[in-house]
């Protein structure tokens, strides 16, 4: 079902993925190892890379993700997140080149869609990475100011016509 859409590096990564069984992590206070922190930072930066505007790392997203998981998420999410990271470690994510990494994430994205349909107990790793990266970035000072037309006090409410290439307003 997925095969046709993927490039060679992706398929390679998928092989790695299949070999990586989901390790079971015993529940404990949530914190990340240095390696896991690096993986989180690399994936966040791949979701929101530095372009002509700041990227996820510039906006402090990696630390935000860890803080949010610890403070706002349940143990089932801590488990699915750490399991996801362990799998990334097993495919040696940090040693892969850019194209291979992209392949892994594309595969992960499709696999997560299937997983989500089954209503898993803990939100899957990729989904957590994505929602927290987007939340962390698009609500950060650097992210908001670079991405949107930020207006703290609009002072009025008006129907307007969108100009070509106009950015969204953020408030």
């Amino acid at each position: 079902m997925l095969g046709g859409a993927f490039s060679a590096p992706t398929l390679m990564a998928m092989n790695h993925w299949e070999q990586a069984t989901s390790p079971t992590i015993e529940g404990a206070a949530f914190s990340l190892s240095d390696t896991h922190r690096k993986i989180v930072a690399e994936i966040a930066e791949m979701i929101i890379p530095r372009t002509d505007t700041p990227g996820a790392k510039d906006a402090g997203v990696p630390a935000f993700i860890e803080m949010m998981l610890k403070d706002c998420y349940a143990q089932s999410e801590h488990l699915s997140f750490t399991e996801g990271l362990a799998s990334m470690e097993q495919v040696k994510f940090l040693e892969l080149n850019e194209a291979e990494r992209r392949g892994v994430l594309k595969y992960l994205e499709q696999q997560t869609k299937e997983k989500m349909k089954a209503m898993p107990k803990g939100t899957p790793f990729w989904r957590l990475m994505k929602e927290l990266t987007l939340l962390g970035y698009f609500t950060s000072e650097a992210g908001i100011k670079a991405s949107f037309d930020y207006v703290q006090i609009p002072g009025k409410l008006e129907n307007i016509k969108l100009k070509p290439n106009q950015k969204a307003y953020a408030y």
Partner: protein
Amino acid sequence: MNLTIKATKNNTFDAVVVGSGMTGGFAAKELTERGLKVLMIERGREIKHIEGYDTAMKQPWEIEHRGKTTNVSAEERWANSRFWGLGSEEVVNHLTNDKENPYIEKRPFDWIRAYHTGGKSMHWGRQSYRWNKQDFEANAKEGIGIDWPIRYEDLEPWYAHVEKFVGVSGQKEGWDVLPDGHFLPPMPMFAPEVHFKKMMTEKLSRPVTIGRIANLTQPQKVHTDLGRASCQYRSKCARGCPYGGYYSSLSGAIPAAMQTKRLSILHDSIVSEIIYDEQKKRAIGVRVIDQHTHAVTEFFAKIIFLNAGSINTAALMLNSKSNRFQNGFGNDSDQVGRNLMDHQLGSGAMASIDGFEDDYVYGQRPNALYIPRFRNWGNDKQTAYLRGFGYQGGASREGWESGVNADGFGADFKKSLTKPGPWSIRIGGFGEILPNPNNRIYLDSEKKDKWGIPMIVTDAAFVENDWAMRKDIIASAVEMLDTAGFKNVTSYDRPTHMGLGIHDMGTARMGRDPKTSVLNAYNQVHDCKNVFVTDGAAMASSSCVNPSITYMALTARAVDYAVKALKKRES
């Protein structure tokens, strides 16, 4: 603005008002404006208008968890956080810590509380609709509950009085189902909403209007005199508005009462009992427990207004026992605590909207569309349920949040999320709940809170009429979005309990007969005429429109009556 009363000083006032929220504030304003010296007693902490709104001007990145509820907050606010987003740092200090103020759920009830100056008026939805004539007549016609002792005409001048003071923005429509009031200019509908209104009118003959909301679109002198300014369209109302752009007890009624120099406010003070004098055959005051020191003080007054919020007002009455009222104060009818109502919400439909790509909006509208009741109205007759529901909702352009569920990552994905996304629309129902004596609160016979007051037990749930209506709320929402030509129409039905509408009411109802009701046509306790209940507890039915403006109108009317009666007695 803060006059703290020394317990040892003169503890006698013309009137005591229990509660500082939507109706307590209005009672204090109306009483002081008529020359009475008033003590307002608030069980929670003091929040000062403007300076007390500690998150109001925070930028998004200054809110540490960016709107999400932390695990700690979810544990402390175990009931409050059942409502969307109420556990987040933006607003959490405006909601009660449930862990410190627990109640017992015999049947689950989502009790949303706000123990502080202004109560829930701090973060109400601000939707302000008059009841219609039928709302007051339906109980009698259908043989449900008991008849209201008043009709629309009795309340009409008081609606006008409240609307002018509060400042309600809205569009006059001339519909019987949703009587027009005194409105400030309406907020605009957005392009797809204009299309939606047109389609509903033409194809389904269902009315659609812009929400009638207590935000100032064009402040009048009565507002600016209190330091209130126009809505700034930030839509961060629940944090408290430093501009006074929306009405709350804090921005409106309390400052107005303060201007008379006749209002004193006591904070952190829980009214535990109404003191009844068996010889004089009337209430002479209230017993108050200090939140922190637990010290007990008594305050005395000629008249007492109970505005603690429906459930707490009923609990206070039930806890006030005397020789005369062995079953609880004013409770000869055994109706105190019963007939607990709310509005059901949490179901409706959403859809995506093709087109309107060039249409956009500057500013955030703190308001929505309103679709008044069309069921069991006019020629419509439902066999599955009585009464009806209204919808609130509206259209907006999607933001970066849509990226969470979309495929993709990387530079192009990032850029795509900086543009306004496609339009989508969502409407959700607010359904009328019927009075039912078995839906109730009562006091636990053994368990007490840390102030030694019996704990409140909630024992209420939706019944068949509610479930049948809910089915139709969903089906009709889908029908309407389909008929408008919108795409990917999806229904939603979030499991909820009673209470989540935050419109709890009915626990000390008005009526004609003291055998079946607690209050008379002027919100006076039948058997103790110097005590008035004018919060939601007074309601004999619930309509389907948001209730605050009706509570305030009842309050103003009752104060007018109470003061006239008092002056007559004293002259």
